[in-house]
């Protein structure tokens, strides 16, 4: 396919996005139903054109079309097919195109499945979505065109950054973008509601599935990025408090707060103004993340290239959307009528606490991330805000969240019974104490916080089940009745419990890994051994191997525990020949939930090789917990109430037919 087709499709997309911004909004203003309906058609056309453009770029990569500058700079004909495809978004231009593609897909989904949205709300949502698309399409066409040609075309490309030549690139960015950009829908809903000056519980019902979808993808994207960094960078760390990681964590906190406050709004018609603000903040933080990553103000693995004009352009987009939406919020929010009052100790009260702590955590991360930039702009001092800052602030704010988490679902709406909830959590609390005692016994001397943290994690996991058990009535009614009730419970109850349990599992992994990990750095000759975390590793041999576009130096280690052979670990130093750039291919052996992690350093002058080995107990629980969280989100999404979406006056047969379609929201 011809790259000019892609370029042309991109220009057409811009025109369509512009129309999509203006026509439905005009229709909503004048009450012209026909104009409002045009929005849906335009959203589908937009998705089509952006999709065509993206597909053209993918084809250029697959065919190694070196007349396209972007392909020359980021691909190589010897690269395996998978990395030629993923290389499409392994660079600035391509990743921005993917960003817009996800945006267009979400707009198309609203158009397709938003049939029961009020026409005016839908038109405004699509118009807002169109305006975001317009801004980013302008950005791509003027500063980051992926279809620029080179004449004459070089014979070979410069290859993709070897760190990115990994299956992680196929998974992490698309998931993360589905999360980031997914919040554009909730943002569009919030702005549309503000434009109309009208908001109600039904609004929360429409918004919740989108917020949940975006949140679940963002959770997966962050977890995947963390695991990728863990095995690829060879330092054995799974979270570095790198500004770019922080950029994804901030919208995650805001999004987590949003999916909780939307529940209050839907069920109790309260916290409206706050929910709208969170919806705006979640996407604003996503935009800020895009700015931090793409503008080059920060140095990180994610910074592909620096070009000042791009930074200024994204900053302008940022100011326009965040400033505009917040100004609109300031103008219109007082018009939104507040409903539902509640006592401080109640389900609402617990959710307010959750929201306060999550937004405070988000703000703490924001301060830590932007403070160095602000200080440098102010007096030129170059500083780093390191992990201790984030561990202290986020840790201190998240501990009460974890502790309060099992209580929340057990409190009644409007007025809750804290003593009653505590009573029902006695079993969980007892189990937590047992686990804390076991942990204290297992570690002997050591950090006091570790047993405490594990007890807390166990409390969260077991406490998460308390609501399900309570609602089914186990212990109060005959077992058969309880099981029958269990089947009748809405799926969102299970989803919530599962997601909460996931948090506990993740917390357990984090605490176990940070308190009990063992590290060993050694120079080892072939035949030599060393010990880490109770395991004995012997370097059997060092052998060179050849790959399609790289050469490996593989170290083969035998693992023994107490003299018994457990298996082997292969760890490699990989040299990518096109860029003459080495990467570490760490060797990992998973034993239950724990991992032995070996990475190779440089070959030593006197023979042998530098080795860094870690014993990481329960480390996989960090990612398994995140998976469970996302799974909980997905389970909640499959709840019939959410699929049906809007509240219906009565159960007509037609409503039932609507509910059967397997779409996230209608």
């Amino acid at each position, binding site marked *: 396919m011809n790259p000019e087709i892609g370029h042309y499709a991109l220009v057409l997309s811009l025109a369509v996005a512009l129309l999509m911004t203006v026509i439905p909004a005009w229709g909503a203003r004048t009450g012209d139903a026909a104009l409002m309906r045009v929005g849906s058609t335009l959203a589908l056309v937009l998705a089509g054109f952006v999709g065509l453009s993206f597909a053209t770029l993918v084809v250029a990569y697959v065919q190694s079309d070196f007349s396209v500058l972007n392909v020359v700079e980021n691909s190589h004909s010897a690269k395996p097919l998978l990395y030629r495809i993923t290389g499409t978004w392994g660079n600035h231009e391509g990743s921005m195109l993917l960003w817009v593609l996800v945006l267009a897909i979400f707009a198309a989904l609203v158009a397709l499945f938003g049939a029961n949205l009020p026409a005016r709300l839908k038109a405004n949502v699509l118009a807002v979505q169109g305006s975001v698309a317009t801004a980013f399409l302008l950005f791509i066409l003027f500063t980051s065109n992926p279809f620029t040609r080179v004449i004459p075309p070089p014979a070979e490309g410069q290859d993709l950054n070897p760190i990115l030549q990994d299956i992680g690139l196929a998974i992490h960015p698309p998931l993360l973008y589905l999360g980031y950009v997914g919040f554009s829908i909730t943002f569009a809903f919030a702005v549309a509601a503000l434009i109309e000056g009208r908001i109600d519980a039904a609004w929360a019902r429409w918004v919740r599935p989108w917020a949940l979808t975006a949140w679940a993808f963002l959770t997966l994207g962050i977890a995947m990025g963390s695991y990728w960094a863990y095995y690829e960078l060879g330092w054995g760390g799974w979270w570095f408090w790198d500004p770019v990681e922080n950029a994804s964590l901030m919208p995650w906190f805001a999004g987590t707060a949003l999916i909780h406050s939307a529940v209050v709004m839907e069920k109790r018609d309260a916290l409206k103004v706050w929910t709208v603000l969170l919806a705006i903040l979640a996407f604003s933080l996503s935009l800020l993340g895009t700015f931090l990553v793409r503008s080059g103000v920060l140095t990180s693995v994610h910074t592909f290239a620096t070009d000042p004009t791009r930074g200024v352009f994204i900053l302008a987009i940022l100011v326009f959307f965040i400033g505009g939406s917040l100004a609109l919020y300031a103008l219109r929010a007082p018009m939104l009528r507040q409903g539902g009052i509640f006592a401080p100790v109640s389900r609402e009260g617990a959710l307010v606490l959750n929201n306060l702590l999550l937004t405070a955590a988000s703000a703490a991360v924001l301060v830590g991330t932007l403070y160095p930039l602000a200080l440098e702009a102010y007096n030129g001092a170059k*500083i780093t805000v390191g992990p201790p800052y984030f561990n202290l602030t986020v840790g201190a704010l998240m501990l009460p969240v974890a502790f309060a988490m099992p209580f929340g679902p057990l409190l009644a709406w409007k007025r809750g019974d804290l003593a009653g909830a505590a009573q029902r959590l006695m079993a969980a609390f007892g189990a937590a104490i047992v686990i804390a005692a076991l942990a204290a016994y297992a570690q002997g001397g050591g950090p006091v916080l570790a047993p405490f943290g594990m007890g807390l994690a166990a409390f969260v996991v077991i406490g998460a089940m308390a609501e399900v058990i309570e609602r089914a009535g186990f212990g109060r009614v005959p077992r058969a009745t309880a099981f029958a009730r269990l089947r009748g419970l809405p799926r969102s109850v299970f989803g919530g419990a599962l997601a909460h349990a996931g948090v506990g599992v993740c917390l357990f992994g984090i605490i176990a890994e940070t308190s009990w990990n063992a590290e060993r750095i050694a120079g080892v000759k072939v035949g030599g051994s060393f010990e880490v975390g109770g395991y004995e590793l012997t370097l059997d041999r060092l052998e060179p191997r050849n790959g399609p576009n790289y050469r490996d130096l593989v170290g083969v280690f035998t693992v023994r525990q107490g003299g018994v052979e457990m298996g082997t670990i292969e760890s490699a130093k990989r040299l990518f020949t096109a860029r003459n750039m080495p990467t570490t291919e760490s060797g990992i052996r998973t034993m239950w939930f724990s991992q032995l992690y070996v990475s190779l350093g440089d070959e030593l002058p006197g023979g042998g090789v530098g080795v860094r080995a870690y014993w990481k107990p329960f480390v996989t629980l960090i990612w398994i917990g995140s998976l469970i969280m996302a799974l909980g989100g997905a389970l909640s999404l499959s709840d019939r109430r959410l699929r049906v979406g809007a509240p219906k006056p009565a159960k007509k047969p037609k409503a039932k037919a609507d509910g059967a379609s397997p779409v996230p929201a209608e």
Partner: protein
Amino acid sequence: MTRKGRRLLVISCAAGVLFVAAGLVLFALNDTIVFFRSPSEIAAEGTRPGTRLRLGGLVKDGSVQHTDGTHVRFVVTDGGADMGVTYVGLLPDLFREGQGVIAEGVLAPDGSFTADSVLAKHDETYMPKEVADALKKQGVWKEGEGTP
């Protein structure tokens, strides 16, 4: 409790959380920020030993010595001044002589630098921004020249 009273309670709770969070942030910031310095700046300022710093510059050609498997010594230079660094551990993949590097650690009493982490670039065409600025200050490298 009246509606007004409840609202007051919620707002005061919110203010309490925000207050605690702000206190935490200030306390933590005070304690954990690390300044970036180039060798010339350290020489000029007479930084006290024991200060935690991020030292940045180029790895001086021919200065890297592996004393045994894991102990490494090298010299960081910005053209104006040099600083010896000792480090125990594996060097990052892109650590090379003549290339940009950032070492985080503590200034020792003997005037050398004990690093506990060493960061090189993520990409062979990329120079850490702080290092690039420090080198520009010393006139070693100019914008648009490409990475040294």
